[in-house]
């Protein structure tokens, strides 16, 4: 493979990881890992319907409407799952499987010939993400890098600005309420950020690995830190290390980069969980 393309792929994947860390840390703190799963499955019908309305996958209106409708849907799922806490898993399961089925049917009927075919929904299309380029100052830059780079800057800005507020929401929402904060609005804002991340990463790594990237680095970093900032920093280092290993394996043996990455992280997590006492002593 051309080394220039390799670096671009590496950068795209690194940006996907960073964005996933920022958006998932709060849901991980709130022990709502499967909400990410539900949202990543449920956005599919929204994307297809918006594509049918605006007839484009890259226009601003496509991104705008997708984000708006997906946030509303995510809020609905989140609301329903909290409405009946004891059976929240059932509600999440019913909604994500039903909506994903609708998405697959719509894809089959209307969007077969675009990037939204059923296989790319499941597996993503990382390898193709670097071929759609835009010229900036004579440089050919992949659109995916621009989109994910913009999202990264936004995530960084929001994280630094609202870190303490989001942290308080994760652990003690009633005190926030008593202090006069509009908790549902903050909640909606967090969901909006998660949806934004899911929509941008979905195209690159697919539905299921979006979930993996949102949860696994956080779980690994939990062994080394507790504060949200520590979790993000440690997760980033762990993910970067895993990315180097998986890039080597992936390009050496012609395997899917995202799948190798997830397996490397998974093996690390399982090993660390079983031998944590031994590693901690070291």
């Amino acid at each position, binding site marked *: 493979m051309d080394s220039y393309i390799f670096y671009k792929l590496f950068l795209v994947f690194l940006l996907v990881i960073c964005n996933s860390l920022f958006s998932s840390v709060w849901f991980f703190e709130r022990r709502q890992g499967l909400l990410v799963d539900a949202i990543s499955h449920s956005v599919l019908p929204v994307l297809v319907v918006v594509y049918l309305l605006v007839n484009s996958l890259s226009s601003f209106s496509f991104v705008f409407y997708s984000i708006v409708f997906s946030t509303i849907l995510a809020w609905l799922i989140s609301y329903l799952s909290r409405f009946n806490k004891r059976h929240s898993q059932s509600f999440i*399961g019913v909604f994500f499987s*039903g909506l994903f089925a609708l998405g697959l049917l719509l894809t089959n009927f209307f969007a077969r010939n675009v990037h939204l075919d059923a296989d790319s929904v499941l597996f993503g299309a990382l390898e193709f993400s670097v071929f759609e380029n835009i010229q900036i100052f004579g440089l050919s830059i992949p659109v995916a890098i621009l989109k994910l780079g913009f999202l990264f800057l936004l995530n960084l800005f929001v994280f630094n600005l609202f870190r303490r507020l989001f942290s308080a929401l994760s652990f003690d929402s009633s005190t926030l309420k008593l202090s006069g904060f509009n908790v549902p609005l903050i909640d909606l804002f967090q969901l909006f950020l998660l949806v934004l991340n899911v929509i941008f990463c979905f195209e690159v790594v697919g539905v299921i690995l979006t979930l993996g990237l949102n949860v696994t680095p956080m779980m690994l970093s939990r062994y080394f830190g507790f504060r949200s900032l520590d979790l993000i920093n440690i997760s980033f280092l762990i993910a970067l290390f895993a990315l180097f290993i998986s890039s080597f394996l992936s390009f050496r043996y012609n395997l899917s980069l995202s799948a190798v990455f997830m397996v490397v992280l998974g093996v690390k997590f399982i090993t660390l969980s079983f031998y944590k006492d031994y590693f901690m002593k070291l």
Partner: protein
Amino acid sequence: MILFITLFLLSFTLYLLGGVYYFKSKSLITDVYAHVAFPGVVLAYILFHSLDLYLVVFVTSVFVLIVDYLKAKLLSITNFSTDSIFAFFIAFGFSIGTLFVNFLQNRGVSTKAGFSDFLFGNLSSLNQSDSYVIIFFSLITLFWIFFYRKVLLSYLFDEFSINKIGFNLLYIERSLSLMAVVLTVLSLKVAGVVLTTGLFLIPFSISILFFNKIKHLIKFSIILISFVSFISIIISLNYSGMSTGPILIFIYFLVFLLSLLGKKIFNKLNYG
């Protein structure tokens, strides 16, 4: 007719198991099984160069049970929530499957069509022997549930009383896991990896909106499952290019939404 019997028996068995997991608040465990089953299916192909259902069921069930053991162990030795551990195994299992597919592709094996049936479900690809395998396992599970119905009720609503009546809790839990794993693998060819969990959850979630007595739940489920199975078979046989999984699950989902709406309106009219 045989397709209808197969789909009906499978759906009804999944409905009962789905009910058990619903009351135990572990509904999404079936989603973990389904995603972890995907690498099992590909592994069966790598080992035997065949996607015959009985081979797939054997290899995949062993694979999923190993992962299930690992999952239970991780839940006991770590402080992570069930949600996080489930989410991890869903992604980890599916990634291993993707790597197995890559391995086959690198060896020049074209397997896309065969695996698509397991990823998205394809009822029309079930042959007679597949149907017999599904019917066989469904009947065994139904027989087990019928035989242990009283123990199961104790397990659902008063777990600790099981030991008092002379049963081993571990035996009940392991048997349920084994049956759920085997039936999940069998249902992959009907509903697919991602949507199998819908077959476990949606029909039961519809019934529980209206009824809370076991007798009524079962009667209603027979009508519901017969109706949806019949419609899905008609659609999937007439539109051969379409996967069955999405059709089946979407019809159930539509019925769920209508039932939810209907119940809200009914409650409003009657209780204000």
